[in-house]
């Protein structure tokens, strides 16, 4: 049967051909539409032709920089940008990213900038107020554009496009290479009878430069008992930092002695965050930090008895009797890998994780993660709403089904021809 001898890859090639043909057809269709009807995105200002700075900077920052401004005024720079007379150039900031941002203050840059070349200073940009509560890594934009409300709508909501000359710096607040972080030391518990239960809460933290002065670390322990049981109990512990801090590293340590659970066999899950509070009232909080692996089980201790031993993967709390327990302990001693050797394994993984060729896997994966349908479009293809609703949306749904059916056919044929 000649069909059996057919190269199975031919189906894949056929699938790709259909795919490429469909995409090409759409590309031509909309490309011609664009040429015919002149759909245009904004005439983007070349990024080299603009600049912006505020104290402590004395010259323009660059697109993509991590910055911390402390000044109360701003300097906007245009160098050879297109003239916009009789309109004005406007400059200002937005908190967030293009398409998902909140507009801050915008200033008319004045007639000096109409010819596209100027250095102007504008007051009332007090960055200590603007950036209050911003955390390390907060995205924000500096935009200069010939005034048009459509541009603001585009910058804020991603709607339509900016039909005027514009330039944007996408900046991040903070210091490059630093992140807020909280690490917990593996908790150590002590049981005095069945309840209460005492747990040492300790770890270390790092605070990247921010305008927020953190005053506390809030550690939240969620206790599942018995393990995996849906109902949980939550204990929250506030640990005051020695001094309010907006930068630095340190350690924290305290004890929670208010854990009352009748059954102490369970699983703890820890998370923590920075708190800014005034006289006990929480003002600002950071994102939660979770520690991978901060899950641990307790053995039910004897009443009135000392330290419960920590259990791990396959050990159970089942009582097998004196001989049974001895046998279990011998088996554990013989076959249970030590935590050191498991750490050793992770150290080997970390040793080569970023080295070629292993490191390329993560890099390529991250690069391909950028390939999605949610990015800000490079240009805007516009249609009447009714056309989109009644023609393109049903067509899109239909195309989705066709693609899945094509994939299904390819999948079946791929394995029909699969030879071990």
């Amino acid at each position, binding site marked *: 049967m000649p069909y059996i001898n057919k190269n199975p890859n031919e189906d894949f090639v056929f699938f790709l051909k259909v795919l490429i043909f469909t995409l090409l057809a759409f590309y031509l269709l909309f490309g011609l539409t664009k040429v015919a009807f002149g759909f245009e995105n904004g005439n983007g200002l070349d990024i080299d032709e603009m600049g912006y700075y505020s104290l402590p900077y004395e010259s323009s920052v660059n697109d993509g920089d991590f910055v911390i401004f402390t000044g109360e005024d701003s300097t906007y720079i245009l160098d050879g940008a297109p003239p916009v007379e009789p309109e004005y150039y406007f400059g200002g900031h937005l908190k967030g990213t293009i398409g998902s941002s909140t507009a801050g203050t915008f200033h008319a840059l004045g007639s000096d900038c109409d010819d596209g070349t100027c250095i102007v200073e504008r007051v009332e940009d007090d960055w200590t107020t603007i950036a209050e509560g911003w955390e390390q890594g907060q995205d924000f934009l500096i935009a200069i554009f010939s005034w048009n409300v459509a541009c603001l709508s585009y910058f804020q909501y991603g709607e339509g496009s900016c039909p005027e000359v514009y330039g944007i710096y996408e900046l991040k607040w903070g210091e490059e290479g630093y992140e807020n972080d909280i690490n917990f030391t593996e908790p150590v518990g002590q049981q005095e009878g069945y309840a209460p239960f005492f747990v040492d809460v300790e770890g270390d933290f790092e605070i990247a430069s921010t305008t927020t002065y953190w005053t506390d670390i809030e550690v939240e322990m969620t206790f599942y008992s018995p393990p995996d049981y849906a109902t949980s109990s939550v204990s929250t512990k506030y640990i005051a930092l020695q001094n309010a801090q907006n930068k630095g590293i340190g350690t924290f340590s305290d004890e929670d002695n208010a854990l009352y659970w009748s059954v102490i066999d369970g699983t703890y899950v820890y998370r923590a965050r920075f708190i800014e509070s005034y006289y006990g009232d929480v003002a600002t909080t950071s994102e939660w930090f979770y520690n991978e692996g901060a899950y641990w089980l307790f053995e039910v201790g004897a009443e009135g008895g000392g330290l419960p031993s920590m259990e791990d993967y396959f050990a159970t709390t089942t009582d097998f009797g004196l001989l049974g327990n001895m046998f279990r302990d011998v088996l554990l001693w013989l076959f249970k890998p030590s935590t050191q050797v498991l750490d050793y394994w992770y150290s080997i993984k970390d040793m080569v994780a970023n080295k070629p060729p292993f490191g390329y896997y993560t890099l390529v994966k991250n*690069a391909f993660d950028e390939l*999605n349908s949610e990015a800000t479009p490079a240009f805007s293809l516009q249609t009447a709403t009714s056309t989109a609703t009644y023609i393109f949306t049903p067509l899109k749904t239909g*195309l989705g089904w066709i*693609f899945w059916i094509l994939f299904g056919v390819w999948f079946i044929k791929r394995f029909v021809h699969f030879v071990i």
Partner: protein
Amino acid sequence: MITTLLLYILLTILKGLLLPFTLMDNASLPDAFTNAMITASTYLSAFNDFIPVSTLLTILGLVLIIEVFINGFKLVNWAIKKIPTIG
């Protein structure tokens, strides 16, 4: 004890084998590659109102995974067949 010892021996051998890799600089991709992906996304998303781009990307990902699985399977089979008395 036994598992720990075996793991230590195995991992020490593995560490020795991987040692040359640690002498290399960290892997990095050309900026152009990442930028190309980001640029491609901006063009793809422009068509998202008309073409089910996310469906296409999902299918492309599945095809790649299946192909990698099949070719990986063939590679292992090929390697096994090279061993005398087994192949």
